[in-house]
C-alpha cells in the first residue's frame, strides 16, 4: 500500500540517524521487525535492519498482516516492531482497531510519513495523507510520538517499554528520512 512519489521536501536528509534508531530498537529488546517497505525509512532503517541478524526481519505483503503477526508474538511475550508507511497504517485501521485497541495489545508501530516536509508538524503538512494521521490516532485513542530529530530518538525505548508495560498500542511517526549512518 505504499506510494512512491518524488518530492523535493521528502528528499531532505539529515538530523535523524538511522543507526541511532536501530540502537534504540535493540535497546528496547525488540526481537522481530515486521515490515512492508516505506520510502521514508527504506534506506536509513529497513535496509540496515535487513543486514542484521537480530532483530529478525519478517517481510510481509500487507500491513494488516503485521498487526496480526505482532499480536501473536505479543502473546508469546516476544517483542516486535511493525515498520510501515502512513499509507499502510491507514489501510490497516480496522486491524489496529480490532486487534491492537480492542484487545489491548502492545502493537508497536513505527510509521514513515510519506512526503512530510521536514521541520513541519504533521498536522501542518501540505500532504492530506500526512495531516490526517495524528487526528485519526487521537480518535482511536492511540498514543503517538513524532521522531523527527536525533533528540527524539531517546523517546523510542521508553515508548516501547511503556506499550508493553500497559499492554497498549503505540505509534512512532518518523517525520523525515533517517540517514543510513
Amino acid at each position: 500500500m505504499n506510494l512512491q512519489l518524488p518530492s523535493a521536501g521528502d528528499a531532505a536528509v539529515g538530523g535523524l540517524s538511522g543507526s541511532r534508531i536501530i540502537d534504540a530498537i535493540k535497546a528496547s529488546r525488540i526481537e522481530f521487525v515486521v515490515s512492508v517497505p516505506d520510502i521514508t525509512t527504506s534506506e536509513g532503517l529497513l535496509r540496515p535492519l535487513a543486514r542484521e541478524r537480530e532483530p529478525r526481519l519478517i517481510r510481509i505483503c500487507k500491513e494488516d498482516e503485521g498487526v496480526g503477526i505482532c499480536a501473536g508474538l505479543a502473546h508469546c511475550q516476544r517483542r516486535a516492531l511493525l515498520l510501515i508507511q502512513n499509507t499502510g497504517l491507514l489501510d490497516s485501521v480496522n486491524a489496529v482497531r480490532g486487534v491492537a485497541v480492542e484487545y489491548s495489545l502492545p502493537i508497536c508501530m513505527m510509521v514513515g510519513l510519506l512526503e512530510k516536509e521536514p521541520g513541519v508538524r504533521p498536522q501542518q503538512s501540505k500532504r492530506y495523507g500526512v495531516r490526517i494521521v495524528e487526528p485519526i490516532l487521537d480518535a482511536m485513542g492511540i498514543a503517538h510520538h513524532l521522531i523527527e530529530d536525533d533528540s527524539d530518538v531517546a523517546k523510542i525505548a521508553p515508548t516501547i517499554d511503556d506499550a508493553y508495560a500497559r499492554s497498549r498500542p503505540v505509534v512512532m511517526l518518523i517525520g523525515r528520512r533517517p540517514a543510513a549512518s
Partner: protein
Amino acid sequence: MMKSDECLKALMRHVSDDDIVLPVYSTAFDWIAIKPRPLNYLAHGAMGLASSHGLGLALGRPDKRVIVLDGDGSLLMNIGSLVSAAEAGPKNFFHFVCENGTYEANGGHPTPGRGLVDFAGLARAAGYRSAHTFSDLQNFEQRIGAVLAEQGPVFVDLKVAPSGPQNRDYTMLHGPTARQAFKDALTARI
C-alpha cells in the same frame, strides 16, 4: 464434500494439549464444542487475520505446533498471508482452510470464485513446503496424522459443506475471558 464437524472430530484425535489451535468464525464454535481447551486462540479480530496471528505464534513459540483452522472467505481477505508465511517458513505452522464456498458468518453469501479457486495450488505456488486437498472423510482420517507430522509450513484444504444459517454470539470469541485464558495457558507452558 465432507461435513465440517466430522473433519474437526478426525483432526481432534491428532491434536495434543500442547498444540495451539486458531479456529475462525463458525469453525471456532464447532471446534470449541468438540475440543474445548486452553490453547484455543479465538480472538483474531476480523478480515481474515487468523493466519497472520498464527504466523506470529509460530514464530514466537517454535516449540509448539500452531494449527490455523481458516475459512475460505477469511483466507481470500488475507491471501498475501500465504506468501508471508512461506517466506518466514516456520516448521511448526499448519494452515487448514475449511472451504465451504460461503461467507458463512455474514449471511451465507457465496465467496468469489466459489468452487474454482485451487487453494492448495495457491499455497504451493506461494512456497508452502506441502499442500493437500481432501474431499473424502475416510481419506482425510487416514492421512491427517501423517500430514501433521510433516515439516511446515503445511497447507490443507478441506472441502466441506456449508453449515447453514448461523446465529452465534461472536462476542464470546473476542471477549477478555477467552483471551486471558489463552494467555495464561501459554505463559504456563514456557
